[in-house]
């Protein structure tokens, strides 16, 4: 058993950490306020290779592993969860389906530019009447000669404004669900207004509308009718991304709380000397360590081509609930100051809440885990 990161994992972690601290952190608070999407920073991330991190070089990726991907998302989340969501959704929801299911031709044409950072990628699964129950997809795709005609609406989709394509699920004449690559400039495909959100405010979340959207026949992704299997696989990987995001956010909460507790003096001593505060901090530090172990192990299983569905769901469930708890406790430790924007921790709580919902709610994670232990 080896618990040490490899040399290149450490170098990737260090490089992303430095970039996050120096370039991403300074504007995070402002972007939360204005909801402005950091296009420049995303461009830099593309140049560094982060947008193609866990994919092979032959498709324009960096060829790093899933552990490195988790480390990168964690570092970004420590300073800006919205941007970490942008990156995580791009890699594990937007790019992964092309990598797993795409033909050589589709990979070269759509995946490579995404991995090289020319554009982002998005994944459109959720619909007004199909959330947790993704099998309830109502969007339709009808084959007409050499084109598919898509009709339907997708809800809460991350990245579409900056995405060169979206992978969308739809029903065809064949039973089951299928996936399609919908390029940005497709006639009949439009992107709705930005949602007003509680948190993750500078990530791009929008509605997608397909109104007789016409895409070439060859844009079917994978086998017709087998999209369900495909996106379950995609969501497994996505959960590692959300777990990493959660871990980073929880660490940021602990760090802020610890720093504040050592500075804030009440009753003649720093509040970190009160056992009630110490226990909160000790609990968080312990749970963060456990979340880290669970996450890295799930990523390691994926890298070693072993089953990781259960472990990824557990890592996501535990880490996302921890992120909410940690932010909540961080505010508590800050007292009234924590309720104020200036101290960041209120943003951490707003951002963290999404993690219990996106890419499968906590309830859905428990369903997945229960199923995999034989219930």
């Amino acid at each position: 058993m080896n618990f040490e990161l490899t040399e290149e994992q450490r170098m990737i972690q260090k490089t992303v950490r430095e970039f996050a601290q120096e370039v991403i952190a300074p504007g995070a608070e402002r972007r939360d306020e204005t909801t402005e999407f950091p296009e420049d920073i995303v461009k830099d991330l593309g140049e560094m290779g982060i947008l193609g991190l866990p994919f092979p070089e032959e498709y324009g990726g960096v060829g790093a592993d899933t552990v490195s991907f988790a480390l990168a998302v964690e570092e970004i989340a420590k300073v800006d969860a919205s941007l970490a969501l942008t990156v995580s959704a791009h890699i594990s929801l937007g790019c992964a389906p092309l990598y797993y299911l795409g033909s050589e031709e589709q990979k070269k044409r759509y995946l490579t530019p995404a991995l090289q950072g020319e554009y982002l990628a998005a994944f459109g699964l959720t619909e007004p009447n199909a959330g947790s129950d993704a099998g309830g997809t109502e969007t339709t795709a009808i084959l007409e000669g050499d084109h598919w005609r898509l009709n339907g609406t997708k809800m809460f989709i991350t990245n579409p404004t900056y995405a060169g394509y979206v992978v969308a699920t739809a029903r065809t004449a064949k039973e089951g669900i299928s996936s399609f690559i919908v390029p940005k400039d497709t006639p009949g495909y439009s992107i709705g207004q930005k949602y007003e959100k509680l948190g993750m405010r500078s990530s791009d979340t929008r509605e997608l509308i397909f109104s007789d959207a016409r895409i070439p026949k060859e844009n079917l992704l994978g086998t017709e009718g087998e999209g369900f299997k495909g996106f379950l696989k995609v969501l497994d990987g996505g959960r590692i991304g959300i777990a990493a995001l959660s871990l980073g956010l929880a660490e940021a909460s602990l760090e802020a709380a610890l720093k504040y507790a050592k500075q804030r003096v009440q009753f003649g001593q720093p509040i970190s000397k009160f056992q009630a505060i110490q226990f909160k901090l000790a609990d968080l530090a312990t749970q963060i360590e456990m979340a880290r172990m669970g996450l890295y192990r799930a990523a390691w299983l994926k890298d070693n081509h072993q089953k990781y569905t259960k472990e990824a769901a557990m890592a996501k469930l535990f880490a996302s609930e921890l992120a909410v708890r940690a932010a909540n406790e961080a505010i508590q430790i800050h007292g009234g100051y924590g309720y104020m924007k200036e101290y960041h921790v209120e943003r951490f709580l707003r951002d963290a809440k999404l993690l219990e919902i996106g890419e499968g709610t906590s309830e859905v994670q428990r369903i997945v885990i229960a199923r995999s232990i034989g219930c």
Partner: protein
Amino acid sequence: MKSIVLIKQIPDTGEMSMDPQSKWLVREDVNKIINPFDTYALEEGIRLKEQHGGEVVALSMGPEHSKEALKEAIAMGVDASILISGDVFRGADAQATAYVLAKGIAKISEYDLIIGGIYTSDGATGQVGPAVAEHLGIPHITGVRKIREISETRIEVERLTDGGVEVVEAELPALITVVKEINEPRLTSLKGIMKAKKAEIPIWGMDDIEATEGRVGETGSKAKVIDTWIPQRSKDVEMLEGSAQEIGKAIVDKLKTAKII
């Protein structure tokens, strides 16, 4: 154009501490970085290669973990890295360090330009660069903020001095040390890191560089550090409140009371 960039791995400037007994900087268990000035040297070397073709090699003397810094140099874009390492080299002063680096460079043998940072943030002598040049019998220019022109045989640079800027030329091969004004080091690309992972970094010892015993490491160092300490920082801070005028007056009163003015 073949450049050799001299780099050193140092403890993160924000986290430095000293071993009270040996008076050496604690170099284990702290975050380590490439000496900040050396990253500008690396960037300049890589740019020269991009503009004029050729090759750029990073060279370092230090403990084995300096390999990390040398791998980072490869991740940034240098073609190869070499480490000179071994217990005998430990505790070297600026002169002993320069001797060893010069021997290493002599072994590499072919080069047009040697680039270093103006000084390291841990030792801060600024002597190593010039001393290497003296050992090699080549000209050196310190504090370079811009390479104006470079050809096969000649370099013309702007050199930052206390009073202003000097334009200096030298024949190649030469050694320059650079300041932060010279460029903006590039972001390390993660692709570069994967390339660095595969790179082999040779470790050279005494025999490889044909160094003379007694001229390296602590024994080869004429400068002996008698004492070093980190200055105590007082934590007594008094925050004054009020308008700018009130605060100004309060400061003057306090300085008067303390008989400073």
